[in-house]
């Protein structure tokens, strides 16, 4: 891209053509509509339960406004402390994602560089695993996890790595295939061990894919309900989605106000995460995915 083109692009936003201005206005309108469902959840979290479904669009008014009551109710509900659930959720999400990224990127490098029959079989098994509905393996998976004593928050990342390996390996292999082999060859000639080559040469190049896979895995683990519900020992460990599910009584009775409040609380870490690495995410998802 020439300097002139760059300069022209940098200058553009200053004097927008009417067409572009119209686009800005159009997107501003769409953006508001796009955020609407989330905004509705936010202000309903301040309404008393009975007023939530009665008119979900109505803003809180003097009659329906309950301040932070829903938040207090949601947090203090039941005999399981919410901060425990939140702590386990954060821990499981971070460790599982970290483990998945580390192990599958190494596996993907092995698969594409060694490329023998065994690694090709593993690769295709991974691709297949992406399309298996969770229900098909839920009971057998829970059973296997239990027999291997993987039913604690400290060990469940192993299960996540196993069940989530498919997508991650698929995307990493796609990326590794596209990076030129010359650099690694040069490193090998310089006497680098495979470990060193991987961590100092290959892994840094993988950054965009690490981010795009990371985003997918974080979203999955953070919001996942059924897998931790079946695998974890429920008398001791809960996560946020499980905690929210327990707000529902038998016969579908549910405190909607408190549910909305907990949903907002569970969104905060995600939003913080997104805002703090917005740039990397947008770039990363894009670059990583295209290569895949």
């Amino acid at each position, binding site marked *: 891209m020439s300097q002139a083109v760059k300069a022209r692009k940098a200058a553009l936003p200053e004097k927008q053509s009417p067409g572009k201005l119209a686009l800005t206005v159009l997107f501003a309108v769409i953006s508001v509509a796009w955020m609407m469902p989330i905004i509705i959840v936010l202000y309903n979290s301040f309404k008393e339960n009975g007023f939530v*479904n*009665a008119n979900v669009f109505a803003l809180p008014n003097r009659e329906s406004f309950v301040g932070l009551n829903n938040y207090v109710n949601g947090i203090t509900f039941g005999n399981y402390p919410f901060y425990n659930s939140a702590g386990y959720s954060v821990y499981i999400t971070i460790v599982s994602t970290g483990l998945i990224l580390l192990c599958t990127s190494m596996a993907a490098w092995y698969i594409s560089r060694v490329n023998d029959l*065994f690694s090709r079989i593993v690769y295709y098994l991974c691709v297949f695993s992406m399309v298996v509905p969770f229900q098909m393996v839920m009971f057998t998976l829970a059973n296997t996890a239990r027999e*291997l004593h993987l039913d604690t928050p400290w060990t469940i990342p192993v299960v996540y790595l196993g069940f989530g390996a498919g997508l991650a390996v698929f995307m990493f292999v796609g990326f590794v295939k596209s990076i030129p082999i010359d650099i690694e060859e040069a490193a090998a000639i310089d006497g680098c061990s495979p470990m060193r080559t991987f961590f100092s040469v290959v892994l840094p190049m993988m950054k965009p894919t690490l981010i795009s896979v990371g985003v997918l895995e974080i979203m999955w683990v953070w919001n996942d309900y059924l897998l931790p*519900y*079946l695998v974890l020992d429920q008398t001791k460990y809960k996560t946020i989605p499980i905690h929210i599910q327990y707000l*529902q*009584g*038998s016969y*579908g009775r549910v405190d909607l106000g408190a549910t909305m409040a907990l949903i907002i609380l569970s969104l905060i870490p995600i939003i913080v995460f997104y805002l703090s690495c917005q740039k990397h995410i947008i770039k990363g998802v894009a670059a990583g995915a295209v290569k895949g």
Partner: protein
Amino acid sequence: MRKLFAVLLAAAMLLSMMSFASAEGEGKVYYLNFKPEADQAWQALAQQYQALTGVEVKVLTAASGSYSTTLTSEMDKKDAAPTLFQIGNAEGVATWADYALPLDGTELMQEMTTEDFNLKNAAGQTVAVGYCYEAYGIITNKALLEKAGYSVADITNFESLKKVADDIHARAAELGFDAFTSAGLDGSSSWRFSGHLTNMPLFYEFRDDGVTEQPATVKGSYLNAYKNIWDLYITDSAADAKKLSGYTGADAEKDFYDGKAVFFQNGTWEYADLTGKYGMNPDDLCMLPIYCGVEGEENAALCAGTENCWAVNAKASEADQKATLDFLKWVVTSEEGTQMMAEQFGPIPFKAAKASSNVFFNDATEMLNAGKYVVTWAFNYTPDVDNWRAGIVSALEQYSAGAADWGEVEYAFVDGWATAYANTH
């Protein structure tokens, strides 16, 4: 070769992890509880018992809508499966037949005042004991009824109910309240109609035909009565019949405690919230039987039964089974246990039961004393409960919105039953 060796080594490691020693000796109790509302009370009671006797009691409460998944998954735990779980109906008995220990002759059963609510297996053995019972009908706000110029005594059958309801509905604007609360078909409310209200045609049909076990087919001979009462619910209420799936259980409850409606079809379990959380005066409340236009229904009492029955795991060790039965006996005989049961479940069918202050139960007892007949929970025979009910809900919703005729409801009721039965047998 190295690779193969490594894989085998890893596999061997895993296998060695799988074989772990299991502790034998003292029996322990593991209760899989079905009611999220009662979780805290059970946990507290378990701790008391443990402190008292030293026997380990673990209570796990399944999340809403996940009971059957949880039970399936937990029962797979060879050494740590629940020793005590719940069976709600005939379908549950059929599914868990291999796991339900016959309880006849146990000390627990000797404490019972009635066996009406127990469930029996194909061999006629009692495999699940109903530990509480509930009644439902039309909860009525007597104060509002009087404001409209009527009294409870005016309502003795469907005809008189309709007359009163139609009149209140016609004068709704002037009175400031309507006859019925919303007949919501949202998941938190639809079971009142697909489960509890369908009991009316099922009960009368089974009574006529002398049905005493789960039938493969039903005829729907009383579906016209079902139509009567449903039409009344959706006509004489302020709710938009075209959008019933948008009304929740909480909406109907709010209609009622806000004084916006006189009649509210629900059960004894509503009492605590209505008088406690929402501060209604117990003297203003009573429960009427559901009248739907069946011959002789003037003599009907409330619909009484239960979906809460304890079953003991037949595959648990003998020590665990004994510990479990001992625990249950303590629950229904001890001061702490009966107190908790009375608070959480109302009256229980055991000799040492504490009295309940729930006026709806008093209504139920009064009607029985007056010689009226109990409408038992015939819907406990429903095959493939969730799917059968889902069919009814969808048909009711379409019918109410004018998108389908009553035939759709008949199909869901009659053909739906046959399909559900065939699928599960």
